[in-house]
């Protein structure tokens, strides 16, 4: 079983680094209009900040930052944001994902600008939720395996 090693150095390094990684992730997402970056990259950075806590602080203590059960719903929320932007454009008589028909009351050019931003946020959510969820699946799988072994060993002693 993988146990977290309680070392004050790694703990505090993570506590200092995680906020900066997350701020940089949001910068990459929201600055994707002007520089390289966007939803996929920013989402991967966000997931990286969560996984750093998972690795260093251990699965239990890092639940406060991002609970395991939220992984898949978070990813689904991202896809829903993306698909929802497409349907919002249809409400106003446009085609699916035709951003200049979004009902936000701006000029078409800025509507497209906003549509790109919303879609990138959706992609970032989807990537974050998916990456964290995959990691949690693998780790939980291992731990459950271990518990099953311990359980069977204990029952053998009972018999």
């Amino acid at each position, binding site marked *: 079983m993988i146990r977290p090693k309680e070392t004050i150095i790694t703990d505090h390094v993570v506590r200092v680094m995680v906020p900066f990684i997350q701020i940089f992730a949001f910068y990459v997402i929201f600055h994707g209009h002007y520089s390289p970056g966007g939803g996929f990259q920013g989402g991967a950075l966000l997931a990286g900040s969560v996984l750093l806590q998972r690795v260093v602080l251990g699965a239990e203590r890092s639940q406060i930052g991002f609970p395991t059960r939220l992984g898949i719903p978070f990813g689904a929320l991202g896809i829903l944001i993306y698909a929802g932007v497409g349907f919002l454009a249809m409400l106003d008589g446009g085609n699916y994902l035709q951003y200049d028909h979004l009902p936000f009351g701006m000029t078409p*050019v800025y509507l497209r600008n906003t549509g790109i931003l919303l879609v990138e946020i959706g992609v970032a959510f989807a*990537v974050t*939720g998916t*990456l964290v969820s995959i990691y949690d699946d693998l780790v939980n799988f291992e731990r459950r395996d271990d518990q099953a072994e311990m359980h*069977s060993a204990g029952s053998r002693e009972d018999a």
Partner: protein
Amino acid sequence: MGRVLAFLVIVAVGVVLVYAGFGLPAFGDPNAPASTHVSDAYIEHAYHDAHTPNFVTVMIADYRSFDTLGESIVVFTAGLACFLLLRSERRRKRQGGGQQT
């Protein structure tokens, strides 16, 4: 017999693919259809259309947003597949342990 047949099919498909590959335009060919129509239009109109200096973002999220929607759904589906596979494995293990006791 089946293996020989499968091998022959693989070789045949490979030959067809390599032959078709020779018909592709050279890498970076300025006269390729992709470089003469779409790319120019994207680069010329991106800023005018969406007021976004980074035209890669405009291409990914605006002109080809269907593509990106599919990509993010693929990513999410991969995560969902991991979730379902590993969780069902876990449940099977637990049931197996129950039968042993």
